[in-house]
Each structure stands twice: as C-alpha cells, then as structure tokens.
C-alpha cells in the first residue's frame, strides 16, 4: 500500500511533509523513537532538495510511503532537479576544534545513520532517493527477518 504527497520543493512545505511521513510510520506501527529517525532522514533529504535541486526555477518534490512486510517502511523521494547521487557524497571531516569545525556537511551523514538502507537512481530527468527503515522494536537482533526472494 503506497501513499503519496506532492508539493513545491520549498522549506515552507517541510512541516507538511514531515507530518505525512510521521502519520505513515505511526500507521505502520513504528515506535516513537524510530519515527524520529525517519523524520530526521526525510528532513535532511528534503532540505537538500529544496536548497540544491532546483537552482534556476522552482520545482516539485514527491514523497511516497510504502509499507512492506516485516515492519519495513520504504520512503521514495522524487525530484526533477539536477542530478544528485547522495551515495557519492563525501564523508564530513570531524575537526575537534570549534573554530575549525565546518558548519555544513552533516545532513547526508545523519541520513546514513538513521536508515537501514539507501538507494539512488537517476530515471530520465528524475532523482529517485529510496530510504528503507525497519522498526527496531519489531525485530529482535537475535532473530533477523530474512530479506530477499523466497516469498
């Protein structure tokens, strides 16, 4: 079952998008803590798109939530901005001195740490970013859910 929201790629739409993913995750039975992880990943991805995807003109972004068996939520974020493969972004440098520490570059690092899997595809003029999250509470670490073919 997929639910989709479409909006102008603008920061003033961020709260609406976060509310959407929050309610999808709540309906999928995700724990409060894992919903915050999801919101963080989606906020960081949305901010990237709003800031950098459309430089010449405004554009749209589409966010879809898909619930998969085994307590898995797949979020697909699509824009028609310039190509950007988040997987190829460089890791930030963690300077220990406040004066030398860079102000930016943490968003993608946070996404990587919040989700179980990230996929990216350029499809024609579209960027498709796929974030996969598993609700930790539904899967104890000792009995991992089998993933892949076999259904």
């Amino acid at each position, binding site marked *: 079952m997929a639910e989709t929201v479409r909006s102008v790629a603008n920061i003033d739409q961020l709260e609406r998008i976060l509310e959407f993913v929050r309610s999808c995750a709540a309906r999928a039975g995700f724990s409060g803590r894992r919903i915050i992880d999801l919101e963080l990943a989606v906020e960081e991805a949305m901010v990237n798109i709003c800031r950098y995807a459309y430089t010449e003109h405004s554009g749209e972004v589409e966010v879809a939530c898909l619930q998969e068996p085994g307590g898995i939520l797949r979020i697909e974020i699509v824009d028609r901005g310039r190509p950007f493969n988040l997987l190829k972004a460089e890791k930030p440098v963690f300077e*220990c*001195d406040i004066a030398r*520490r860079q102000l*930016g570059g*943490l968003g993608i690092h*946070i996404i990587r740490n919040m989700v179980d899997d990230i996929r990216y595809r350029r499809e024609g003029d579209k960027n498709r970013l796929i974030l996969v999250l598993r609700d930790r509470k539904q899967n104890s670490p000792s009995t991992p859910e089998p993933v892949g073919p076999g259904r």
Partner: protein
Amino acid sequence: MDTEKIGDVRIVRLQGRLGEVSAPQFEDRMKEMIEEGEVLFVVDLGGLEYISSAGLRSILSTAKELKKLDGLLFLSGLRGPVKEVFEISHFVDIFRIFGSVQEALEAMPR
C-alpha cells in the same frame, strides 16, 4: 525556549524541536543576547526531543561566535535521539557536555 540568568551565566532551556524551521529563531535569539554583552552560556537540551543538522549548525555557529569573544557555551541534559545525533556527528568531541544545568554552572569560571 526560556532563559534565566544566574550570576554571570545565561541559562537557555530549549524545548521540543530544533530543526530547519526552528533553528534560525534560536540562533537569532542567541545573537541578540551576545550583542547585549552576554558571553557565558549554558544551553540545556533536556526538553529537546529532536535535533537535525540545522539545529547542530545553529549551536556550532553560536559557539564559534562566542569563541571569538572568549566566551563559553556549555551544554547539558542531552538524552534520547538528541544525544544520538550529537554522538554520530561527533559534536560530543567539540562541546563540554554536562548531566545537568547545575553541573555545567559549577564548571563555569568564577
């Protein structure tokens, strides 16, 4: 966000969320207080449930400003997802972090 002054130290308590939408308000308010001459801060994150990279950036940017003025910004009360974001971003390595406002106050120079 509410603030309180104890001796020379300004205590700032944050509540709820510090993300893309709310971080600029926090940063502006901190700038105002710095312009009014405040240089010693304890920012208590005990009531914060959510922080994104924008929130981290606003705290770091304020700390950079204070460093130029020989000021100090201590943090207290990190918990749950906020603590986790501080850890993965290695912000725990660049800030002095205390369990409570009281402990942070005691570590401030007199």
